[in-house]
């Protein structure tokens, strides 16, 4: 296996997953504004149209998100396997009627006659002053709806696996993709492989505290763990991967193991991801455990995200904040020089190479 691994970015991994899926199943098509343009959706679809030249399979679209979704649903009912991508989750709000009323319920309301195998990739924006309408998370708007599957990519490896599994799935699957993950690199197998939908993954084992998170926030958790390791604090990280269905078994295993849990929400906490996680944990603990276990949460501040970087930086918890919070929860009173990891990246840049605009 090792030989067949190489370090590639999340964007490259998604692209590879798309190409492999399209080669495997000729019914898979790619739809979205800009899927065939020079930038290719942050590189994730770059030149895929060139690879599949004979029969057109990559479709740019008019700016008509609601109809785009309806058309994808219709085509999915007739044997096509469409993958939609929106460059910002906000654009998909125009299509929630089709997603929630139609796609999510089609299998049910047709009495099991037809399901809608549709993948919708939603990109969460952040940074570079994009402001209130280009930086929301909004996962729970989808995760609340029975009939949808809702999953979150958090690294190069699961990017490809989740994408492939979603395309093979017979149901509408919403994939959340954080803009700040696209350039993150790691080892990714070359082969065609799946990451089971509905499973959380313990991506780091540890015994002192559990961090539960998803999407980009899992990166911050990893950084937090790296710092704390130097102080002999072993952090366990549960990467949710799937918000619906929710893998409560894996969550509870880790919660029970460390007895201290910090839920790290990738969005606003009110009626957010962390609300459901904490409720579920609460429901699963017995009274004795309840008094001994420590369960906390942290997440985005409860306001629209401003454009100015001078304020946007207060909205997102960083690994610094996580370290502080863990420090408090464990009562370790460590004096930590968090700066260890920051290579002086500005708070509105995903990485050093990035100099806007999106």
């Amino acid at each position: 296996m090792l030989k067949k691994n190489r370090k590639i970015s999340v964007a490259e991994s998604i692209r590879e997953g798309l190409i492999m899926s399209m080669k495997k199943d000729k019914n898979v098509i790619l739809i979205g504004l800009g899927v065939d343009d020079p930038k290719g959706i942050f590189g994730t679809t770059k030149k895929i149209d060139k690879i599949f030249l004979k029969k057109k399979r990559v479709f740019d679209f008019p700016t008509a998100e609601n109809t785009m979704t309806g058309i994808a649903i219709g085509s999915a009912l007739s044997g096509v396997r469409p993958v939609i991508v929106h460059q910002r989750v906000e654009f998909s709000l125009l299509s929630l009627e089709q997603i929630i009323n139609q796609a999510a319920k089609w299998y049910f309301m047709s009495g099991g006659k037809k399901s809608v195998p549709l993948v919708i990739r939603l990109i969460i924006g952040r940074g570079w002053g994009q402001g209130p309408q280009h930086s929301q998370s909004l996962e729970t708007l989808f995760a609340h709806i029975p009939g949808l599957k809702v999953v979150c990519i958090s690294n190069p490896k699961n990017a490809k696996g989740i994408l492939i599994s979603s395309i093979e799935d017979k149901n509408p699957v919403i994939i959340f993709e954080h803009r700040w993950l696209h350039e993150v690199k790691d080892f990714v197998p070359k082969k065609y492989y799946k990451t089971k939908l509905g499973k959380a993954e313990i991506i780091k084992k540890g015994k002192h505290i559990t961090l539960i998170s998803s999407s980009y926030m899992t990166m911050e958790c990893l950084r937090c763990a790296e710092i704390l390791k130097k102080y002999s604090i072993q952090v366990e990280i549960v990467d949710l991967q799937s918000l619906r269905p929710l893998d409560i078994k894996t969550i509870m295993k880790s919660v029970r193991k460390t007895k201290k849990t910090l839920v790290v929400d990738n969005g606003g906490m009110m009626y957010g991801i962390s609300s459901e996680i904490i409720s579920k944990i609460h429901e699963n603990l017995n009274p004795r455990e309840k008094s001994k276990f420590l369960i906390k949460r942290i997440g985005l501040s409860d306001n629209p995200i401003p454009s100015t970087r001078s304020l946007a930086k207060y909205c997102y918890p960083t690994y610094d904040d996580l370290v502080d919070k863990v420090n408090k929860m464990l009562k370790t009173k460590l004096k930590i020089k968090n700066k260890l990891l920051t290579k002086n990246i500005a708070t509105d840049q995903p990485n050093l190479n990035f100099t806007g605009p999106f």
Partner: protein
Amino acid sequence: MKIKKKNKIKLYYEMLRIREIEKTIAEKYNEWEMRCPVHLSIGQEAVAVGVCQNLKKNDEIVTAHRCHAHYLAKGGSLKSMISELYGKETGCAKGLGGSMHLIDLRAGVSAAVPIVGSTIPIGTGIAWANKIKKSGKIVAIFFGDGATEEGVFFESLDFAALHRLPVLFVCENNEYSVYSHISKRQSKKRNITSISESLGVKSLKLNGNSIEEVFLKSKDIINKMRKDSKPYLIELKTFRAVEHCGPNNDDNLNYRTKNYLNYWEQKCPISNYEKFLKRNKLLSNYQLLKIKENIKKQISSAFDFAKKSKFPKKKLLKKYIYA
């Protein structure tokens, strides 16, 4: 083009059958056993029949809340439909959908949903898949005048024109959206066929209460579509004879004037065609009797079937959430 005698009778029969079925639904609705909203098509049968008679079995249709006529005209199973209204496991959607979610894949009835306008892009997507897969099938999308106010109507025509999709947009203009007359909702200068043309979709206005006009003109168009694989739109003026939702007449509410009602009552597509057929000796009283008997038998056996069928079992609730 001329219509053969046999086909004329068939057109009449299909309309009458739909009418009688819906009348029976209306009658029996007050037994409170069909416990779901019903939007009857009484008065609008010529559109459904005129268009669907030109479609092949594997051509597809999608429709909206007022879907009984389209479902039946396309050949959807009567028993499954009535059972669906009764909420039984033998229903076309196993009772999960109700009257507004009729479906019969074998007959090419691909979808009905009650969110106004929402099946327009879905139908367009089915047509797109047909084009991609070169299936040669035609899709007809039925919708009302109210649905042409939704953004998805325009967006779908746009897409169909851009990709030259074999889809027939059928706008059944009964001038009302619930109790609202079209003049309260649309500028007097607005014109549905011009809209269509301006977006790049050829279109035609038809008399929705003349079964022969609907049949012949849509035959023309559908024949063209089979060759050139292009989208078309037809707008058919027609009249909803009973209340928007439910089994009754609601003329007492006075949202439609006496004049208006009188005008349209004289335009009933079925009684006029019956007169025409009789006048031209194409239909004898005896034939008519036979037809009516036949229809009656179908209806009573469908209702018997539905009534005798079982309600779905509890486990069905969780069976079809994920495929």
